[in-house]
């Protein structure tokens, strides 16, 4: 995939990019298993063509996009984002794609569109752990409308100059760099514009542990562990000190105003 460097503010960190092997073998993608190595082992069978994405709900022009059509919707950009997992580790990934807003503006959301819901593939024939009781399938994620429209919110088709590997969410996924990684759904099949806050998979599973917002925040601990620091994968070997975690994963200048006046401890 060829892409030009993005001009969106904050879209290109200068930090050292995580090794490709680490980024493609250490994944959370529970449809393929809960071990970090499971997705790389089990996602090979996923068929990413043909693939369509239904964009529907509170919009004037609902549409079913073919993946090839989506790829040509806007110029592909390369953006280097920090990725912070809620589990306390982080990576730096060069993604390829464009702002989700490119899709949103083409379907013309109505005044009732307050939230966006992302539904991901749940096909037990291709995904061995769909049907396990780990989560309520399909995996659903969501954003508030202004979050979805933020230029940093990215629809991703590739990484490291290549088409997305299956275990990283092929053929298309989201990247919301100021939120914990699980907010960025993988292998998306449906984007719905809704009035009520979506019931996301992790909120359904453990609302007291994983909130709807799930903005990266070193001052709001997970009930079972601290979020003050993170382990940067591949940095400094076994005895490396952890890094301090930054508010909004270091994207406060770009996204802080979205949450002005909000109690981030309550809206975790």
């Amino acid at each position, binding site marked *: 995939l060829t892409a030009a460097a993005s001009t969106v503010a904050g879209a290109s960190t200068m930090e050292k990019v995580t090794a490709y092997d680490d980024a493609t*073998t*250490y994944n959370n993608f529970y449809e393929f298993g809960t071990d970090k190595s499971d997705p790389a082992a089990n996602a090979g069978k996923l068929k990413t063509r043909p693939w369509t994405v239904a964009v529907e709900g509170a919009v004037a022009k609902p549409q079913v996009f073919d993946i090839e059509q989506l790829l040509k919707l806007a110029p592909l950009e390369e953006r280097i984002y920090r990725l912070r997992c809620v589990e306390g*580790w982080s990576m730096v990934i060069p993604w390829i794609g464009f702002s989700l807003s490119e899709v949103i503006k083409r379907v013309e959301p109505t005044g009732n569109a307050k939230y966006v819901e992302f539904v991901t593939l749940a096909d037990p024939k291709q995904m061995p752990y769909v049907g396990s009781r780990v989560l309520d399938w399909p995996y659903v994620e969501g954003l508030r409308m202004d979050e979805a429209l933020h230029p940093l919110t990215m629809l991703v088709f590739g990484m490291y100059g290549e088409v997305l590997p299956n275990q990283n969410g092929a053929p298309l996924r989201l990247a919301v760099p100021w939120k914990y990684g699980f907010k960025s759904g993988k292998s998306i099949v449906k984007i719905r514009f809704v009035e009520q806050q979506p019931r996301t998979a992790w909120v359904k599973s453990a609302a007291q542990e994983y909130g709807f917002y799930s903005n990266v925040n070193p001052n709001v601990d997970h009930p*079972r562990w601290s979020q003050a620091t993170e*382990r940067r994968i591949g940095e400094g070997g*076994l005895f490396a000190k952890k890094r301090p975690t930054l508010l909004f994963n270091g994207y406060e200048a770009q996204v802080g105003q979205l949450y002005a006046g909000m109690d981030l401890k309550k809206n975790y």
Partner: protein
Amino acid sequence: MANPAIAGAARKKPLLLHPAAKPVLLALLLLPLAYLVWAAATDSLGANPAEALIRRSGDWTLRLLCATLAVTPLRVLLKQPALARFRRMLGVATFGYALLHFVCYAVLDQGLDLGVILKDIAKRPFILVGTAALLLMAPLALTSFNRAIKALGAARWQRLHKGVYAIALLALLHFFWMKAGKNDFGEWSIYAAVIAALLGWRVWEARRKAAQPTAGVAPAAAKRPVRQPSLAREAGEGQG
């Protein structure tokens, strides 16, 4: 000299009484440690080696705990009294891997910052429970030599070492809470089933014995009427 039970066992399974049996077991017990050290040194533990070391040392602790608890049931069910020789080494190895597990957590995850560690233990119930299990294991490991049995007296020593049942339940709870975050209890339920079977057998066996009030001499003891000194001592004097 002529102990028919021992001789019989030796004839059926001389391997268990072979002088090399213990060194071989020790070597086997050190294999996972050797592998982890080698894998860490060659950076072949994947993208997050610290996490891998913490998890795998924990896995081995649980496995060896199960093996330790399996000695007595297997000894009785298979009528292999010689199996008792290996219980101590398995128990001490379990403690060794538990200690490795804690050291990996304290050093690799918490940067050996005592204040941070104490706060973490207080904040996270599953860490608290794991730490409790480790602390309870320490007196057992530290009294795992013959002079300690003599000094404490067999009965008191045995009562102390019954603490292993509490340790097993704490270890299970520790692993359960660790997995609870992902609602992923597949692996946990295997350990739970094994430990439930091993503890359940003991309850069943105790009830069975209690139901035989006439047996002034326990059948197991009757089978080894002549105290075979080394065996009796290594068996830790009891059912455990």
